[in-house]
């Protein structure tokens, strides 16, 4: 089943063509890698899918609905979660509160009941607390639940960013360089987590420079270079593809 359709997406910043006519599908539930050298347009595409930019041409169709041009929060509400490349957390809040903020769109009790703190709202609060603890447990953050997000080491901040996104119950999760800057054992653990996230039915679209991580994790890979889709296919095929090697290393090497 196709969850997300990218169709002929073009984005121009000033005179620079960041993306040109990019098309591909993301199926549910797969782990799709998006790779390419610096400046290939990967982050631009992420920003377009999650609504921080809009495409100048083309369509983004999520669950059979056009989402290009919608606001960030509307796209998030439709079921797309993302983590950012740079650490983006509620730094001055505890780890637990960070995850709790992720539930914003997932309350069933109306908001006025929450303000009046009716018994229904109280019950919901308790289930949400339990859920937050489950998520923290899953991301191995339970021991750090009372710490300020700002005080966590880099690896755990990445894990927390994913924990917050999981709380928002996305159908599609966009991960922007989730293992960059991690040591090998942290990377291994994170790869395992991402696999388990997919097992729960969440589709994952991932941008990453760590080629070993990408090759072992992804079902399929899309390669961008200078804003154009070079090739798409399973990792084995991508590894061998001459166009990909050329894009990364330059013509002379080949």
């Amino acid at each position, binding site marked *: 089943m196709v969850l997300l359709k990218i169709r002929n997406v073009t984005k121009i910043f000033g005179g620079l063509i960041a993306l040109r006519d990019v098309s591909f599908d993301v199926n549910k539930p797969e782990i799709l890698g998006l790779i390419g050298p610096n400046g290939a347009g990967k982050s631009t595409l992420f920003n377009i899918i*999650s*609504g*921080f930019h809009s495409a100048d041409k083309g369509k983004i169709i999520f669950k059979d609905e056009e989402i290009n041009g919608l*606001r*960030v*929060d*509307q796209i*998030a*509400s439709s079921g797309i*979660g*993302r983590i*950012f490349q740079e650490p*983006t*957390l*509620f*730094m*001055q*809040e*505890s780890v*637990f*509160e960070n995850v*709790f*903020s*992720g*539930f*914003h*769109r997932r*309350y069933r009790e109306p*908001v006025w009941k*929450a*303000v*009046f*703190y009716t018994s229904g709202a109280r019950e919901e609060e*308790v289930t949400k*607390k*339990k859920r937050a*603890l489950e998520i923290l447990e899953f991301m191995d953050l339970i021991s750090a*639940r*009372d710490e300020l997000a700002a005080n966590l080491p880099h690896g755990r901040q990445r894990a927390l960013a994913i924990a*917050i*996104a999981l*709380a*928002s119950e996305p159908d599609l999760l966009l991960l922007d360089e989730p293992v960059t800057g991690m040591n090998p054992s942290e990377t291994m653990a994170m790869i395992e987590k991402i696999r388990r996230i997919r097992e729960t039915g969440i589709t994952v679209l991932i941008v990453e420079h760590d080629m070993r991580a990408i090759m072992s994790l992804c079902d399929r890979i899309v390669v961008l270079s200078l804003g154009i889709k070079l090739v798409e296919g399973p990792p084995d095929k991508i590894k061998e593809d001459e166009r990909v090697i050329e894009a990364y290393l330059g013509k002379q090497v080949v």
Partner: protein
Amino acid sequence: MKLPNNGANHKTNRYKLLAIIIAVAALVVLPFCIESGYIKHLIIMACIGTILGMTFSMLYSAGLITLGAAAFYAVGAYTSTVLVMYAGLSFWVALPLTVMISAIMALGFGALFVRNAGVAFVIISLIFAQVIVIAIGQAEFLGGWGGIIGIPRPDSLGPVEFATKHDFYYLILAFLLLVVVVYTALYSSRIGRAWRAIKLSPNLAGTLGINAYRYRLLAYVIGSTTAAVAGCFYAHYFQNITPGAFSGWLSIYVQLYAVLGGLEFYILGPAIGAVIMTFVPEYLRVVKEIEPIITGILLLIIILFFPGGILGTIRNSANVSFEGFDARVKKIKASLTGKR
């Protein structure tokens, strides 16, 4: 699995409740302990200052920094005065009308103002407050720069009168407590959580489905309407209003209440700040002429050296000393077990 109660357990909750009961009881008996009408006046002004400070904090909690906290205070004061003195309405009819009119105004202007939370809003809020003051000053039917005098005190409600300072104090106290209760409920609900989220990271909040614009607007409307009600009470308490009373100075003072008490304490911060800033200058009578200079220096010192304000500074030093205490206890325990 033990659920975290956001750091608080039942024991501290019980202490909190006890502290609140004592505080409210103290506020209720306070006027009976005071002879001087002037002190009573200062207490009433401190209550109004607290309410204004809390409206500043409400906007701040949603990531909006206003330099025009006095704008809707003026709107409320003049709206209610016009309704009572020109339209001949009872105060108790004018009050809800003032709430409605200022809420609609806040919604209309806020819809334009809160599109950006950054510097743009800071400057717009400043300009808006100045324009309001100048517009009132230019309006002949609002008394121009000379203002309006002889505004009546609120009409009595059956046997309950509000003619004296003593009686009026209870009116303003009731409103203050209402604001505290409502604001606390908002801050601890998911609305408050969304406000914190858009303040701390608008981008992350967006990816969680939080519409920053709508939540900013909500904070703006609630804060502005509260300020308008405070203005309405002020007009009918002070019984005369001039545009000068709502100048940029007042907005700076309101800001100072929140900053002095502690910006991160949305309820208690403004209360402590307002009480200090209302009473301390009165006892510095000698330097009345240069009081603004002292205020300015005070503001600089707080921002430069105590950015957490009074409460923030106390909390930080308390945390540090607790940590030191825990470390010492551990050390002693370790040395004891070591000997055994």
